[in-house]
């Protein structure tokens, strides 16, 4: 019986019930259970089916008395885990760069880093790749590009594009559906507050 009361205490603590109130409820319950035991009764004689689910019983009692602590603020349905946001950003950038690489029309058998140098106000000049290590002058110092020999541009860009698109699709299914955030939160808040059963 003391195990039952201790389990109730843990649940009250979890629900934010203040110690004085929890102590009072635990004392009342303990006294009733001890009296029933002294009369030859069992836990079930006092609590019925609730005897098999102390957490449910404790939550029900605390909610009925209105002594539970403040609940955590509900999250917006738009909330997403930071990991999902970061992955989406990385995959998005990867996909865009892969698509740009394919669209830029590079067909050589080598891939080189493409540098964008901003010249003046609002003008962008894209410097095409060249063989070997290239050094480009710039207003903030020379830019250095490194050639990766032996890798075809199109297959690699295509591979990155596929990885990016598939990754974004998976993330979309897992995290970015309109109902996915609220569904997970409802699950976390599950448990309910039982009454008479």
């Amino acid at each position: 019986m003391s195990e039952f009361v201790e389990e109730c205490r843990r649940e009250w603590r979890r629900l934010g019930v203040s110690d004085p109130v929890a102590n009072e409820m635990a004392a009342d319950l303990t006294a009733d259970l001890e009296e029933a035991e002294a009369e030859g009764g069992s836990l079930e004689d006092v609590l019925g089916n609730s005897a098999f689910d102390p957490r449910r019983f404790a939550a029900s009692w605390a909610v009925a008395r209105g002594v539970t602590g403040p609940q955590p603020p509900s999250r917006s349905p738009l909330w997403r885990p930071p990991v999902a946001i970061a992955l989406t950003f990385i995959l998005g950038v990867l996909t865009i760069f892969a698509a740009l690489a394919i669209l830029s029309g590079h067909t050589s058998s080598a891939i080189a880093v493409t540098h964008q140098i901003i010249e003046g106000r609002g003008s962008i000049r894209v410097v095409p790749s060249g063989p070997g290590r290239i050094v480009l002058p710039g207003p903030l110092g020379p830019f250095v590009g490194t050639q990766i020999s032996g890798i075809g541009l199109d297959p690699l860009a295509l591979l990155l594009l596929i990885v990016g698109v598939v990754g974004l699709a998976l993330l979309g299914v897992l995290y970015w559906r309109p109902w996915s955030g609220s569904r997970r939160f409802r699950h976390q808040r599950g448990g309910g507050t039982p009454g008479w059963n």
Partner: protein
Amino acid sequence: MASTEGRRSQLLRGVLDLCLLAVMGEGPAYGYEMTKRLRARGLSIVGQGSIYPLLGRLERDGLVETRRAASNGGPPRKYYSLSPEGERELDSGVSEWKTTRDAVDGALGLVKVEVGP
């Protein structure tokens, strides 16, 4: 038989607060004492649920008053008694119950059943 128990539980659900208020009307009582009073009146099914959450709600709603006092040789207990508002709630609830019971009897009373010993 399980469905019979379920129906009794459902029927009692709506009036258990009145039953608790009624047994409190006999005098202040602590939780387990009320359970025993209800059992003495044939409501042993109370064991299928717990009266503690219900007592908590009655207290929160101001229908009962509580005080802590020593019990017979045991630890101090929380005694529940009717508040003035609880007495009014009991009166109106009993009246409503009788009206409902008569209406249900009017419908079910036409059915002839053999009641066992």
